[in-house]
Structures are given as structure tokens and as C-alpha cells.
């Protein structure tokens, strides 16, 4: 024990600690645990007769390479890795692509997306400021940019960066990635929709959801079934939405200035804004936003979980007050056309809150007050939705099925199943019967269900309902 009082040895340990701390995948308690190990080892070695600095060298050597160690830690704690996205390359001879190559590729893809949206105009689908958005664009919006996004991720996560040549399996993988987009393009355009059609609007709304899963495959590549892969994609999606909204705000300011300045010299810039700035900007921003999320993760703290923390209590209070008011006044839910959609969105929001709370949580932490609040939120959302569903079921039995009602009802059921099971898992987790990982597993295992339902709506609904 006395040897630990050696000043030089303490200094060496402090130096080692500082060095280990610099590893982003290793957090405070981990460093403390490793340091404890190092000290135990030092005591044993000095008791065996080694001098202080000899013992230190042996102990550090036995601890193993810090690169390998922090790589293992990063694998195990992917929620930390997310913020820096540096799994140190597995071997030193695998350098990442230089930053400027990536910027060129990103800019190229963004320009390609911006131009892609203008291509249909050459073939008789003009975008003009005086007309509503032609249904052709609504149906195909995601097809202009998602494939390019998939290309970006396929490039970014290509195997054997640097020295392995493209081989057959890369081509095969590329074709598999392209398949969903090709299928999407076929189903968006092959059906003979009349000019006003509910099923056409359903296609426009559901195709992006189905194709987003295909983007997810490109994003996580081989890690789809490994732990953490899909959760990373969920985090990415949330951050992308936030970046996209920020870029859109900037775009709004840009548009306002464009119109104002040209007006000042007596020219109308409407055609420029509606025909070029808006559509091209909206497409390019998806690519740029994705790149920003990839590049700037360490700069901005994850925003989606922060918003989740902020709004979970507020929505819980809202739902409880709503239920109490309804019980007190006895006023029934007024079933208007949009009510079903509204309650679907409410469930989407609650699922989102649960998902992002799970994504940012340390799965090993003990249940705390926030987890109880989450359970309360989920249960109250279930009750509110149950009441709404009862009212809506009555209306459907009265007026029959329409494509919109069936789609909305299906979504409601899918979300209801998710939340009901989540509530059960939360309750078991709070009683410490299962670990939090079970809840996270359930949420990410459920992700393909949304895409499958969306694909079903795109593929089956139009013929089923006679394209009306």
C-alpha cells in the first residue's frame, strides 16, 4: 500500500487517467472502474516485489491497447458512439475519405436532387405558382431525393474503405438497395388515378414512410440486426427532422427577401420562388440536412431527446386534463371528418416521445421519476384513444368504409398495439422485472411494421377501392 503514496507513481496514474479520459467512448465511471483495476494490479505487482515504475509499465501493458479498448466500449455503448461516430478504424491502414471528397459528393448529390425535381417539367409536368401542386409531384416527392440519400449512405458506409476494390457483392447489395425505390416508382405511377382521388393522396402520404425504411437499410448497412443499428437510424431520423426544420426556416427568410427585393424594382419573382427556389431547396435540403446530422453530431447535443424530456410532462398533463374534463362534463367526442386523423397523430406523437426517450436513455440506469411519467403518458394516451375509437367505430358502422377511414383505422390499431405492449413493458420495468433493453428492443423491432403497413396502403388500397 505504501507504494501508492509514491508521488511519481501517483503522477503517472494521473497522466494515464487523463489520457484515457480523452477517449469519447469512455465515460467518467468507466475510467474510474479501469483506474481501480490498475491500482489493484499495481498493489499486487509491488507486493510481488516490482518497483513502482516497473509495476506501472506491466499493469498498463496488461490493460491492453487503449484503441482496442475504446473500440470495444464504443461497440457496447452505441448511444455514446452516436455523438462522435468515431469507432476508430479497425486497422490503421484504413483511413477515412478526406473531408473534402465527402463535401464534393454531398454537394453533387444535393444538386442532383434539386435538378431531379425539375426533370419532369421537361416532360409536361410544369410547376407553376398559379396552380396547386400537381398530384404527380405529391405522389413522387420522396422518389426524387430518397434514392440519392441512399446513394450517399451506401458511399459513406462502403466496406473496405480505401484499399478494397469494388467486387460483385457490392453490386448485388446496390441492386438490393435500389429495388424498393424501383418498386415505389412503379406503384406510384402505374395506377390510373382520376384527378381527384383519396387513394392517390394516401399513396402520396404513405410512400415516403415505406421508402424511409429502405433509406434505413442503406444507413445501417450490415448492422440492421446487430444491436444499436436501428436505434441509431431512429436517432438520425429525429435529428434530420430538426435540421430540416431549421433549414426550412432559413429558406423561408431567403424566399421572403427574394420576393421583397424584386418587388422593389417592380418585378414579380413568384415563378422563381415556386418553380425553382422552393422545390429545389426542399429536395437539396434533405441531402444537406443528412450530411449535417452525420458531420455535426458532436457539435449539437442530441436535440430530439431534449425536446422529448421537455414535452413528455406537458403532454401527460394535457391528456389527463382532457380526460378529467371529458369525465366531468360528460361531453362526447364530436366525430368530424378529421378527428380520426387527429387521434392517429396523437398516437404517433406519443410513440415518438417513447421512442426518443428510449433512444437517449442509458439502458442500464435504474427506473426513475421520468419513467413513471412515460408510463402515465402512454396509459392516458391509450385511454383517450380508446374513447375516440369507440366514437369513430360508431360512425364507420353508420356510413361505411372509405379508403381514408380504413387507412386511419389501420394506423390507429398498429400504434395502439405498440403502445399497449410498451405500457406492459414499462410497468414490468418499473417493478424491475425486465431490463430497459426489453422496451428498446420492442420499439426497434416494431419499426418495420410501420413501413409494411405503408407499403400495403400504397400497393393494395388503390385497386381495392377502385382508385377513388
Amino acid at each position, binding site marked *: 500500500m505504501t507504494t501508492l503514496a509514491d508521488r511519481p507513481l501517483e503522477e503517472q496514474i494521473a497522466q494515464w487517467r487523463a489520457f484515457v479520459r480523452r477517449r469519447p467512448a469512455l465515460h467518467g465511471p468507466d475510467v474510474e472502474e479501469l483506474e481501480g483495476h490498475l491500482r489493484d494490479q499495481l498493489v499486487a505487482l509491488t507486493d510481488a516485489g516490482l518497483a513502482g515504475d516497473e509495476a506501472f509499465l506491466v499493469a498498463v501493458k496488461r490493460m491492453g491497447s487503449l484503441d482496442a479498448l475504446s473500440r470495444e466500449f464504443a461497440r457496447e455503448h452505441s448511444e455514446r458512439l452516436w455523438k462522435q461516430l468515431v469507432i476508430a478504424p479497425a486497422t490503421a491502414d484504413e483511413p477515412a475519405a478526406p473531408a473534402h471528397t465527402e463535401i464534393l459528393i454531398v454537394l453533387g448529390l444535393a444538386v442532383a436532387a434539386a435538378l431531379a425535381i425539375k426533370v419532369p417539367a421537361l416532360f409536361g409536368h410544369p410547376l407553376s405558382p398559379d396552380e396547386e401542386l400537381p398530384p404527380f409531384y405529391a405522389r413522387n416527392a420522396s422518389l426524387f431525393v430518397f434514392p440519392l440519400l441512399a446513394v450517399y449512405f451506401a458511399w459513406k458506409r462502403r466496406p473496405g474503405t480505401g484499399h478494397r476494390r469494388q467486387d460483385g457483392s457490392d453490386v448485388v447489395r446496390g441492386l438490393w438497395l435500389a429495388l424498393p425505390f424501383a418498386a415505389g416508382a412503379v406503384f406510384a405511377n402505374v395506377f390510373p388515378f382520376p384527378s381527384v382521388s383519396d387513394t392517390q393522396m394516401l399513396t402520396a402520404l404513405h410512400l415516403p414512410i415505406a421508402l424511409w425504411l429502405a433509406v434505413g437499410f442503406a444507413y445501417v448497412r450490415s448492422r440492421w440486426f446487430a444491436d444499436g443499428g436501428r436505434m441509431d437510424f431512429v436517432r438520425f431520423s429525429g435529428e434530420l427532422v430538426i435540421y430540416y426544420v431549421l433549414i426550412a426556416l432559413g429558406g423561408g427568410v431567403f424566399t421572403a427577401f427574394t420576393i421583397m427585393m424584386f418587388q422593389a424594382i417592380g418585378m414579380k419573382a413568384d415563378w422563381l420562388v415556386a418553380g425553382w427556389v422552393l422545390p429545389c431547396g426542399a429536395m437539396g435540403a434533405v441531402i444537406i440536412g443528412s450530411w449535417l446530422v452525420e458531420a455535426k453530431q458532436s457539435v449539437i447535443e442530441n436535440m430530439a431527446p431534449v425536446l422529448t424530456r421537455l414535452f413528455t410532462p406537458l403532454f401527460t398533463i394535457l391528456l389527463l386534463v382532457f380526460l378529467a374534463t371529458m369525465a366531468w362534463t360528460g361531453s362526447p367526442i364530436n366525430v368530424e371528418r378529421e378527428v380520426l386523423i387527429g387521434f392517429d397523430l396523437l398516437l404517433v406523437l406519443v410513440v415518438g416521445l417513447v421512442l426518443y426517450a428510449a433512444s437517449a436513455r442509458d439502458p*442500464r440506469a435504474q427506473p426513475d421519476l421520468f419513467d413513471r411519467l412515460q408510463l402515465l403518458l402512454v396509459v392516458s394516451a391509450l385511454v383517450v384513444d380508446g374513447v375516440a375509437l369507440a366514437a369513430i367505430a360508431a360512425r364507420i358502422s353508420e356510413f361505411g368504409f372509405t379508403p381514408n377511414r380504413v387507412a386511419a383505422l389501420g394506423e390507429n390499431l398498429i400504434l395502439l398495439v405498440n403502445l399497449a405492449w410498451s405500457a406492459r413493458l414499462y410497468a414490468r420495468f418499473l417493478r424491475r422485472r425486465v431490463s430497459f433493453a426489453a422496451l428498446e428492443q420492442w420499439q426497434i423491432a416494431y419499426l418495420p411494421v410501420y413501413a409494411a403497413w405503408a407499403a400495403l396502403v400504397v400497393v393494395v388500397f388503390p385497386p381495392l377501392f377502385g382508385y377513388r
Partner: protein
Amino acid sequence: MDMKKDLVAASATPLVLAILAEGDSYGYAIIKRVTELSGGHLQWTDGMLYPVLHRLERQGHVAAKWSASENGRRRKYYRITREGRAQLAAQRRQWQVVDGTLRGIWTRTCTA
């Protein structure tokens, strides 16, 4: 003996769980016990034990608690959970199959 990395990694989970099934322990003591049990033939890189422990903790196979150690510093102690014991039993059956199969073929080749 120079063991294959894959084999060391694969045996880490059942070994750690089995050692914790003997009683609560902490990182350094677990490694010492591994060396002891294997007569020094199984040498782990010390640091690599911790990601394994953290994975087991996340999966709910072990539970961890910080408490004071005899030298006054904080130390993280690990305890096997009920799920961990079930996992250990499952792994044990799997390893017994591997072991039995190898034994079977090796005794035959040796006697032949």
C-alpha cells in the same frame, strides 16, 4: 498457450457468469480468478473484461453496484441476476455439447 481471439471472446460470457455465480465480485478479482482457474493458460487483456461486464449488465444478466472497497476507493461490484443464471445454464448446455463432441472424436482418433 496462445489462444485464438475468437475462442477467448466466446468463452468470456460463460466464464464471467460462472465466476459471479460463485459470489459477487469485481473486475480485478474476476480476472485473477480466471487466471487461477485456468492455471494461467487463459490470459485476458485486462481492459477487455469491462466491455463484457457492461454488455452483460445491459442485457440484465448481471447487476452492478458501486460500494466502498477495503482500500477506501469506490469499486463497482457485480452480482449475477436470475436471468443471468438462466443464461449461464443455457451456455453450459451448449458448451457441453461442443466439449462432448470434441472429446468423442479425439478419443477415437487417439485410440486409432
